[in-house]
């Protein structure tokens, strides 16, 4: 029983981390309809900036928590203004190529700045301890991640459902012409959303770096995982992403526990089953092509 309880905590923590990593991608895809394949790269930059800030003093982690997402948000702003804005009208395939090209470029930039060694981010002492639950030691930070995930989900839900900005954003998803007819600057909305997406990707980098670490090609691994979460949850739905992240966290954790040799298979199997049964994901709206 203790074992199952402990694995539940592991799964929940992993799932929340997935949520923090994915929510920026979900927001951007849901509203802009842009499949940002450079999302993993933005996440990576966030993680590397965190590393640079904390390398001399673990206490600086608190500072990184603010600076790294802002750095990534600025980067996202530049990308949106210079490249993305000019190519919205070209459609998905072009954006796939564009953002994948960006991912390639960021990969080498990161290799030039930070090298190709495996790196770690140290936590400040207040987060670095262990906590005993179900007769098992857990790193305290894993429990903190669960809290961060819930907070972030609540915050995003509040903004989307209860604020004027949220209303504009939701409307932008369903009818872009209507929004501009209402006198809202749709270009500005797009820029803001993409920058927020970048901020969240950077935040994901900070939160996940102490657990997942930094290494070459980390961004592609993260990207594919985030895409899976996004799709299982359904496009354009933050609550779907949230549900999917927890579901994947639990499924992956328990498959590693019960049938470890098939754990790779399980995540994709889950995705296939969900899509075949519910072609728009768990909670997704039908998004026009």
């Amino acid at each position, binding site marked *: 029983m203790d074992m199952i309880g402990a694995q539940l905590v*592991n799964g929940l923590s992993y799932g929340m981390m997935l949520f923090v990593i994915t929510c920026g991608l979900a927001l951007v895809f849901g509203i802009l309809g842009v499949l940002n394949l450079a999302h993993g790269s933005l996440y990576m930059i966030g993680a590397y900036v965190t590393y640079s800030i904390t390398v001399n003093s673990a206490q600086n982690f608190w500072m990184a928590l603010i600076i790294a997402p802002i750095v990534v948000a600025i980067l996202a702003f530049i990308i949106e203004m210079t490249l993305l804005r000019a190519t919205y009208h070209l459609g998905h395939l072009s954006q796939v190529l564009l953002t994948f090209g960006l991912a390639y470029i960021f990969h080498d930039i990161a290799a030039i700045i930070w090298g*190709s060694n*495996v790196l*770690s981010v140290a936590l400040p002492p207040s987060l670095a301890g262990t906590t005993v639950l179900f007769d098992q030691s857990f790193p305290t930070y*894993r429990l903190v991640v669960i809290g961060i995930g819930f907070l972030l989900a609540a915050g995003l839900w509040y903004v989307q459902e209860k604020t004027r900005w949220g209303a504009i954003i939701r409307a932008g998803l369903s009818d872009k012409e209507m929004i501009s007819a209402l006198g809202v600057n749709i270009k500005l909305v797009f820029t803001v959303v993409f920058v927020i997406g970048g901020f969240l990707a950077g935040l994901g980098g900070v939160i996940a770096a102490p657990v997942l670490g930094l290494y*070459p090609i980390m961004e592609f691994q993260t990207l594919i995982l985030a895409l899976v979460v996004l799709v299982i949850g359904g496009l354009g739905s933050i609550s779907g992403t949230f549900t999917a992240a927890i579901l994947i966290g639990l499924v992956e954790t328990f498959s*590693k526990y019960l049938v*470890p040799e098939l754990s*790779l298979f399980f995540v994709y199997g889950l995705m296939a089953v969900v899509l075949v049964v519910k072609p728009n994901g768990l909670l997704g709206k039908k998004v026009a092509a």
Partner: protein
Amino acid sequence: MQSTSNSDDKADASGSSSETIKIGALLPSSGVYASLGKNLSQGMELYFDEINWEVEGKKIEIINEDSEADPQVSLRKARKMIDQDQVDILTGTVSTAVAYAIRDEVDSKKIPFLVSHAGGNDLTRSQRSDYIWRSSFSSWQIGHSMGEWAYKNVGHKIYVTAADYAFGKEVSAAFKEAYTAAGGEIVGEVYPPLGNNDYSSYLTTIGGAEADAVYAFFAGSDAVRFVQQYEQYGLKEKMPLIGSGWLVSEDLRESQGNAPEGILASTFWDYNINTDENKAFTAAFEKKYGARPTLEALEGYDAARIIAEAAASLGGDVSDPDQVVEAFSNVTFASPRGEFKFDKDTHHVIQDMYITKTQLVNGKTENEVIETIEQVQDPGK
């Protein structure tokens, strides 16, 4: 990059009159293994610096190609180096899959291929070739050397975990074979996927097992995450962790913090081997690159030396592949890792293996050699 392309492909096929010895180095400079590839080339360059890039009046030239650790790409690059650049000797490959991929190509074209890292057993067993010689290690040597020692010195019940790919499976199989032969019992096994970052679920499972110790094979980022999380999940106090040298390798320990303290590992070279050759090597490396050498740097250094000594014994004429591999087989020297010699039957290195223990020294971790297992020879089948 010192890449010269020979536009005239019908260049003098006999090659005996050529002024340079061309070495093709197929190493990853991008992707997950990029840092290993870099260390291997640094080691090679260090040795060639020492001999002024010259053997018996012939210039040594390295042609580098990025293997990307991708067999398909590597095969293309190997063909380029063999057919277009007309290299005399091929060396490298970090990934075992890459070595297998180019195996038939070098075998049929009779290009001496000195494997300087890839450790898959079959390369010097069922896939053996007259032209393939390996100076690094085999997964069997890594795993097997720990088996008996662990039974005598660590405990009689062990939990085994390794990254789920061919190499991880081979190393752990060799360990289990030697450990159970000595009388030990394997109480459980689990194989997380390669490139796994979150070991929480596995560690919870392992923590529930009744074992005296845990044997782990992980490398690169997997090793950093596993060792750190092993401590974070409170297993370090419960069960000692043993494994291979890659668990606590020179380039990873800084990222691991103090977590690796107490780990026992088997390896064929360590920074702290206390011999004159090793001290000279580490000092020269640090002087040139400003960082400590890694195991891979040593592999590159030795590979360069083997090539240079083989070439020297042929008076600098490396045009006949059969003579080159014959010369390889006779190379022996005092390497920083200990006595170096090839097994002429298997084409694989016979070498000392070391058991190291990771200790805290002045707030940093250091590996200390606590046991030498002499002249470990791969069975070759």
